[in-house]
C-alpha cells in the first residue's frame, strides 16, 4: 500500500475542516428533533446530548392519540395524504396536457400561455396567498379541502408545465409524424407515443407536486381551520398556541411527518435531481 504524502494528508485535513462543520450544521436541528422524540419529558428539557433512558413512549402516545393535541392525528395525517395525492394527480394532468398542447401540437397562443405560466411561477407564494384567501372565500371554498388542492395545483402547475415543455421539445418530431402516417389520432399519439417517452419527467414532476403539497404550511393554515379538516403541519403549528406545549410530542409528531417526504425524495432522487435542477435554472 502506498503511504499518503504529506501534501495529500494536508489536503484531506483541510477538506475535513470543511466537512465536519457542514455535517454538524446540517444535522443539528434534525438530530434535536429526533432526540426529543426518543426522550422522556425530563430528559428532553435537561439539554443532554443523548437521553439517559431512550424510549419510544412518545411514539406510542402519538399513535394512540393519547393527548389533547393529538385527538385527530389519524384524520389529519389522512388529510395530508389525500391532499398531496390529489395535488400530484391534478398537477400532472393539467401540466402534461398543457405541455403536450404547447410543445407537440403547437397550439396558437401556446407561447403566450407558457410565458403567463412562467410569470405565475415568479409571484412570491406568500404574496399570492393574500388575494387567494379572499378568492377562495368568494368561491365558497374556504374550509373545504378543494381550496387547498386547487391553490397548490395553481402553484405547482407553472413550473410543471415549464419542465415538461423543455422535456417535450427534446423528443424528435419524426415520432409524431410517423404515428400520423400510420393513421394515429392525436389522442393516440398522446397516449401511446408521448406519455411513455415522458415517463421519467412525469415521475419527477409528480414527486415535486406531492412534496410541495405535503410540506405546505401557509396556504393550509389560511384555507383550512376545523380540527377535522386541517393537515398535519397546521396541527403542528397549533401546538404552539398552548402555554406549556408538549414539545416532546410536537417533535415526535414532526418526526413522523418528516419521514414520508424524506423517503420519497431518496426513492426518486435520481429523477428529481436530473429533472428538477436542470429545469430550475437553465445555464
Amino acid at each position, binding site marked *: 500500500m502506498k503511504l499518503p504524502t504529506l501534501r495529500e494528508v494536508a489536503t484531506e485535513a483541510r477538506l475535513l475542516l470543511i466537512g465536519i462543520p457542514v455535517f454538524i450544521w446540517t444535522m443539528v*436541528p434534525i438530530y434535536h428533533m429526533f432526540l426529543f422524540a426518543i426522550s422522556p419529558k425530563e430528559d428532553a428539557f435537561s439539554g443532554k446530548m443523548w437521553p439517559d433512558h431512550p424510549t419510544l413512549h412518545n411514539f406510542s402516545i402519538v399513535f394512540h392519540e393519547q393527548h389533547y393535541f393529538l385527538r385527530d392525528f389519524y384524520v389529519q395525517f389522512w388529510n395530508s395524504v389525500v391532499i398531496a395525492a390529489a395535488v400530484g394527480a391534478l398537477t400532472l394532468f393539467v401540466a402534461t396536457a398543457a405541455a403536450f398542447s404547447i410543445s407537440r401540437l403547437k397550439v396558437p397562443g401556446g407561447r403566450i*400561455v407558457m410565458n403567463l405560466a412562467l410569470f405565475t411561477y415568479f409571484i*412570491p407564494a406568500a404574496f399570492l*396567498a393574500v388575494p387567494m384567501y*379572499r*378568492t377562495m372565500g368568494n368561491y365558497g371554498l374556504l374550509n373545504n379541502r378543494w381550496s387547498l388542492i386547487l391553490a397548490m395545483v*395553481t402553484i405547482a402547475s407553472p413550473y410543471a408545465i415549464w419542465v415538461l415543455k423543455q422535456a417535450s421539445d427534446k423528443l424528435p418530431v419524426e415520432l409524431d409524424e410517423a404515428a400520423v402516417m400510420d393513421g394515429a389520432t392525436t389522442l393516440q399519439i398522446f397516449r401511446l407515443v408521448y406519455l411513455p417517452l415522458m415517463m421519467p419527467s412525469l415521475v419527477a414532476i409528480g414527486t415535486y407536486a406531492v412534496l410541495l403539497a405535503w410540506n405546505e404550511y401557509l396556504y393550509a393554515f389560511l384555507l383550512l381551520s376545523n380540527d377535522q379538516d386541517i393537515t398535519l403541519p397546521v396541527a403542528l403549528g397549533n401546538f404552539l398556541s398552548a402555554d406549556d406545549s408538549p414539545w416532546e410530542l410536537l417533535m415526535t409528531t414532526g418526526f413522523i411527518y418528516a419521514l414520508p417526504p424524506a423517503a420519497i425524495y431518496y426513492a426518486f432522487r435520481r429523477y428529481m435531481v436530473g429533472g428538477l435542477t436542470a429545469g430550475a435554472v437553465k445555464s
Partner: protein
Amino acid sequence: MAITLSGDQTIPAPPLSSRLTPAQVWGIVLLAPYMLVFLAFVVYPVSYGLWLARHPASYVELYNDPVFARAAINTLIFLVVGINIKMLIALFLSGFFAQQRTWIKWLSVIFILPWAVPSIPTILSVRFMLNPEWGMVNQIIFKLTGEDGPNWLNDPTVALGMAIAVHIWKSLPFWTLILITGRLAIAHDLFEAADVDGASWWQKFRYITWPSMQTLYVTCTLLSMIWTLGDFNSVYLLTGGGPADLTHVLSTLGIRYLRLDQLSLAMASIVCAMPFVLPLVYFMMKRLSR
C-alpha cells in the same frame, strides 16, 4: 363573423371548426384545464387584490404604521445580507462537494436533508433549541462558560439573524446542488492545463471557475431573491414576527394584516413590494424564456 368583400356584399366566414385542424382543436382542449386554473386562481385573485388596494388612504395608513417600515427594512436585510451570504457559501461548498471522495459523496447525500424534509418540524426544532432556559444552545453555552447565553429570540436584531440562519439552513442545499451542476459542466482539461502551469487555487478560481459560472451565479441569486420574498415560514415559525412585531418581513406582514382583517392594508403592503419584484421577474423571464 363574416368577411366583407366590397360594399355590402358579404359571404359567411367558414365555421371555426373547419379553419382549425383536428390537432389544433385538441391543442385548445388540452390547454383548457390550465387556462381555467390560471383564470380562476391567478387572474381573478390578482385583479381582485389590486382592486382592493386601489385606495390611496391604505398607502398613507401603511406608511404611518411603524411595523411596515420595520418590515420593509427587515426584508431588505434579508435580501441583501441573507441571500449574498447564502449564495457565497453555496458557491464555496459547490467546490467542496465537487471533490472526488467517497466520504464527500456520502456527506452530500446527508447535506440535502434540510431541503428534503418539511420546514415546520425543523424550524420549530430550532425554535426550541434557542429557548433561553431549556434550549440546547444555551445549555451548552452554560456548560462551557458557566454564563447564561443570550435570549436569542427576544432581541429583534438577534432574532432576525436567527431567521436568516434558518432560511440559509433550509435553502442552502438546493443552491449548492445547482452550482455543483454548473461547476461540473466546466471542461476538465482547463484545470489540468492550469495545474501544469502551476496556477494557485485562487488563480484557477479567478480565471477559470468564476468566468464560466458568473451568469449562473447571478441568475441563481436573483431567483433566490424572488423566492425569499415569498418565504413565510422562516420568520413566522421562528419568531412569529415578534418580539413586538419587530422581525416581520413583507410576506409575514401581509398575512398579519390579513389575520387582523385589514385586507386593503395587506394588499397595499404587497403592492409596495412590486417595484422590487417586477424588475427581477422581468429579468428572469428574459433569461428563462430564451
